[in-house]
């Protein structure tokens, strides 16, 4: 029964994701697509932060690089299907190039390096008008065609994003269960022990970081086609902080953490747009309280309840044994 529960949950979730959007107005469908884009981006960040334990605060830069690569190439007359792999490759290479100096020194330095990188990327987006359109941005970004089927409609594009999310999610699922993924987790939990067991620490952390960046690039590419108008603002440092917090709120290292985190981080505030500043205020406070009471994120609640139940059962067992021992004279 307990083993079946996740499968049933997954089936229900899939049914909702497939069945509910056709009933919504186009803004609702847009919000769902928007949420999935952030799920993809934070899945990548979860790999970097939650599984490999690297503190990356520049995820929005890769998100932006993906979006701008696709937008610029499509404006130049190329297809989305060329733009997407270029964006992925670009993010991977830049991720390696940025990670290499930053990962030489452990811990908090990567956070600052990625943070600064994000500022630099944002400055390029804002200042290089010949390439990025500056603050005017790039508009009228087309939506792609898939096997001759146009994805122009909100619903068609939503299903496309959903399919990409599923594929990337499945890849990540496979990755974290492969020997590679186990090496990532070993690094997070005890880098020194991992190193002594022959895990090449630098290569693996670099790889985890770069793969996370690729996920952000894909998300950015989908984002550009979804909103059809991009400008520098959504790729500023603030978005990186939000993405990081989404991972932490959902539960870093939990596979479905980003799904929940992105819902709290982008779906709700988009919905409550009229109260956005207050929403962010409440969100910020909630993050602080979460750290104080539930530092492993929302998805750690079931684990925590289970641990408590086991502890209670164990102490009951001990008590029973103790009383049994005292009753029987030896």
């Amino acid at each position, binding site marked *: 029964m307990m083993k079946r529960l996740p499968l049933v949950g997954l089936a229900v979730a899939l049914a909702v994701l497939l069945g509910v959007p056709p009933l919504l107005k186009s803004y609702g469908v847009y919000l769902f697509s928007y949420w999935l884009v952030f799920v993809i981006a934070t899945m990548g960040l979860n790999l970097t932060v939650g599984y490999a334990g690297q503190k990356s605060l520049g995820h929005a830069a890769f998100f932006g690089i993906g979006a701008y690569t696709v937008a610029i190439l499509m404006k130049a007359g190329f297809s989305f299907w060329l733009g997407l792999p270029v964006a992925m490759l670009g993010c991977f290479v830049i991720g390696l190039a940025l990670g290499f100096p930053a990962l030489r020194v452990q811990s908090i*330095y990567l956070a600052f390096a990625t943070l*600064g*990188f994000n500022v630099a990327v944002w400055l390029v987006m804002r200042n290089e008008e010949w390439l990025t359109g500056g603050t005017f941005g790039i508009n009228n970004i087309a939506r792609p065609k898939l096997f001759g089927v146009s994805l122009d409609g909100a619903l068609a594009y939503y299903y496309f994003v959903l399919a990409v999310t599923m594929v990337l999610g499945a890849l990540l699922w496979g990755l974290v269960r492969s020997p590679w993924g186990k090496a990532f987790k070993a690094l997070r939990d005890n880098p020194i022990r991992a190193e002594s067991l022959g895990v090449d620490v630098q290569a693996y952390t670099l790889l985890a970081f770069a793969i996370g960046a690729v996920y952000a690039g894909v998300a950015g590419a989908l984002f550009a086609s979804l909103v059809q108008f991009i400008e520098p603002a959504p790729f500023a440092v603030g978005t990186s902080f939000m993405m990081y917090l989404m991972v932490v709120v959902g539960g870093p290292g939990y596979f479905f953490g980003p799904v929940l985190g992105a819902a709290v981080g982008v779906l709700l505030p988009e919905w409550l747009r009229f109260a956005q500043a207050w929403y962010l*205020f409440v969100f910020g406070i909630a993050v*602080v309280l979460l750290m104080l009471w539930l530092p492993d994120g929302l998805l750690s609640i079931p684990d925590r309840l289970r641990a408590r139940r086991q502890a209670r059962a164990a102490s009951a067992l001990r008590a029973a044994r103790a009383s049994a021992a005292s009753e029987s004279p030896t």
Partner: protein
Amino acid sequence: MSNLLDLLLAGLATGAIYAIVAVGFTLLWQTSQTINFAQGEFVMLPAFMMLGFMTMGAPLLLAFAGTCVVAVVVLGWGFKRGLADPLLRFGMMPIVVATLGLSIAIRNGMRAGISAQAYPFPSLFTDRLFSVAGATVSWADVGTLLCALALVLGTQAFLSRTVTGRAMQAVAQNTESATVLGIDVPRMVFYTFAINAVLACAAALLVTPVYLAKFDMGESLGMKAFFAAIIGGFNNSRGALLGGLIVGVAENLAAAYVSAAYKDAVALVLFMLVILFKPQGLLGKKEERKV
């Protein structure tokens, strides 16, 4: 040439303000391993509080004194008891995340609850110019630089010359030995939080006339201070001074001679160079990895 002198001086003045914030930042790091991502907001809040006191009729310096008292209680004691103490047991990341959340909450609370506008702020100094050796120099730059230097050097002197300051350094170097030697560690840690709060108020006093009081004024200031701290050496508060001045001057020169649009990237470039070639910072000591 005269232009260069002016640029240098303005850069030093800005850099000295970065240094004030960076010193507070390194102090917290040294004594308690706290990394405060809300450091910029810790400057923004006092700026608004001083404005609040002044609208109630207090003169600037009285408003500053009152704000310092409130800041020590709220941003010093409150921050330590409410966030740092309970979270530090779990390592560095929870406190980083919590202060990120705190900074989002403070900034947006200010925007939604008080105002999203920028307010002018009175300067301590006149805005007159004077000329030295053919160069025009502004009093405000000189005054800001001198005040900020006095503050940073005063903090240094306090740390190295007084018994309390030395006890604080002992805590920073080795908490356990300090406890064994009878130093009241929690009290010393509280002192660093209090000093950080006062330095933030002073930074607000000096920087707000230029930046204007606005809910997001702390964002770039906090980030520059982090970079300054790392460039100079994370575990050395003299390094924070050096790093701050370097960042300020380099930024100003780059804005004038290279590209004004990329001014904000200067700190990043310096930072990347430093971690590539001297990861412990210019004045920092190498920290051995503890197994």
